[in-house]
């Protein structure tokens, strides 16, 4: 049993937001998805106040041991999510964590309030990797911006608030400290690193949005360093992620100070990667206990 700021998890492995769509999986795999759900909690893809179509394709580029994506947060918007998705997600056998993002503090506040009041929701994750359209600053890259945001929404709910940090920042530990001081119950990292690729023939940017975010094994060592530095500086639990493919990778993040570990891109290669990583991690931890005892 893992306690993630009050959210009870069967094991420490959850999905990374935006890398697993339980509703689409039900269409592809049927109810097995519910009976054999691979994660200890389900983190929904980022929802915004208004519906979003997302970025123009192409949205994907495969890079060395990694993926660049420019999905652009397509989603049904708050109302659509609450009406259509939430009832289906309530069928999942695990706690539901809803990831939200807004372009102003008020927007985030509206989202947090409306989502938190729903009983199906165990906790919220704030995606602060986007610019504040008022200040122009990336909310999650600036400690003051992050603090102001968390202070604004903290009073709106007693449910766990997880702040998801961006790695595209000079000092993620400072941002994490600011989030904690402002009342965040946990922090999660890393989000994707800004990346780019050019069309092999035309030389123009390949991705419809020009640039995207890098994920997968290519960022594993960078993620581990940031998780370790953040965990050293905050006392709230840390959800570590970035390139996790095996139980050993998850173990490394736990050693670095993470309480839970999220599996993202690896799920694209294996839809049940979460369950496999959890299994491998469990075996590693048992082995360690045995050799420690003897």
């Amino acid at each position, binding site marked *: 049993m893992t306690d993630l700021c009050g959210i009870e998890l069967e094991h420490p492995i959850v999905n990374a937001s935006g890398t697993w769509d339980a509703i689409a999986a039900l269409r592809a*795999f049927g109810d097995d998805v519910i009976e054999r759900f691979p994660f200890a909690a389900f983190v929904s893809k980022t929802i915004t106040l208004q519906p979003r179509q997302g970025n123009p394709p192409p949205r994907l580029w*495969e890079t060395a041991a990694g993926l660049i994506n420019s999905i652009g947060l397509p989603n049904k918007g708050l109302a659509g999510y609450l009406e259509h998705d939430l009832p289906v997600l309530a069928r999942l056998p695990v706690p539901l964590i809803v990831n939200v993002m807004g372009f102003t503090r008020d927007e985030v506040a509206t989202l947090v309030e409306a989502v938190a009041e729903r009983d199906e929701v165990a906790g919220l994750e704030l995606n602060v990797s986007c610019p504040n359209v008022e200040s122009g600053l990336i909310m999650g890259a600036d400690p003051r911006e992050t603090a102001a945001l968390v202070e604004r929404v903290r009073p709106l709910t007693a449910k766990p608030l997880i702040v998801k940090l961006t790695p595209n920042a000079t000092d993620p530990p400072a941002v994490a400290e600011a989030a904690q001081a402002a009342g965040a119950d946990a922090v999660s990292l890393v989000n994707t690193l800004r990346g780019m690729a050019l069309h092999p023939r035309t030389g123009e940017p390949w991705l419809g949005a020009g640039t995207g975010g890098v994920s997968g094994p290519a960022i594993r060592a960078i993620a581990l360093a940031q998780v370790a530095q953040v965990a050293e500086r905050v006392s709230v639990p840390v959800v570590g992620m970035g390139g996790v493919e095996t139980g050993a990778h998850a173990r490394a993040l736990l050693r670095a100070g993470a309480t839970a570990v999220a599996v993202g891109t690896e799920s694209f290669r294996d839809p*049940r990667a979460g369950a496999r990583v959890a299994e491998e991690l469990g075996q590693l931890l048992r082995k360690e206990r045995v050799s420690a005892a003897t």
Partner: protein
Amino acid sequence: MNRTLAPFERRTGTVEAVEGLGAYRRLRCTDPGGPAPRPGQFYMVALAERWGAGDDERPYLPRAFSYLRWADGTLEFLLEDVGPGTHRLAEARPGEPIHLLGPLGAGFAPVREDRRPLLVGGGIGIVPLLPLRAEMEGGVLLGFRDAEHAVAADLFDDPTVCTDDGSTGHHGLVTELLDDRLDEPVEVYACGPPAMLEAVRLMTGERGVPAQLALESGMACGFGACFGCVVPTRDGYVRVCVDGPVLEAAGLEAVPAH
């Protein structure tokens, strides 16, 4: 029903044979416990070992492939070597373990009342038409770059074949052959390169002929998880892997070049 649910498991089969078929490679592997797919569905495929370390250290993600044949416990794919993933698969050795996820996506729908199916394929896009042809009578028009690629047409019985360079069959584009048939009460089932499918979409649209297009798109996951494979439709972007790969031409805004 045009969608067989995939087992919720990336399963591991064994490569049985990889042989050339004209310009293409045909890969046969075991599919332990895999259910019978529907024509137009696809699989996410990756070799279990040494998947990577090709050009630019790729491939990393699995690759999407329509199935050429499925018979209890055995799958066949037809591959065109266009990059590190297809190259690695084209070099696979018998006995190698191979990861399979699928069948995925929505296949072709039954033909409409009072219409005869007309199957139109371009290049490697002929693949999903082979299992479809086994289920419905109807004409088959196949276009290829040249005679070497057109060898794959032998998989079909009496198809009408054309090549861009005239090295075999009619000299010209398959869409030219299609044009002559659009006054008949047909329903078009097409798969091929984007330019061909876009032409089919426009032609059939003008002539009011229903058409089902099996699209391709760069995919990361194949089961709706990444939102990366979208194409624009009249009601916004849809994911080719779960809402397609077969989509009604009438619903599409365009067939994207990528």
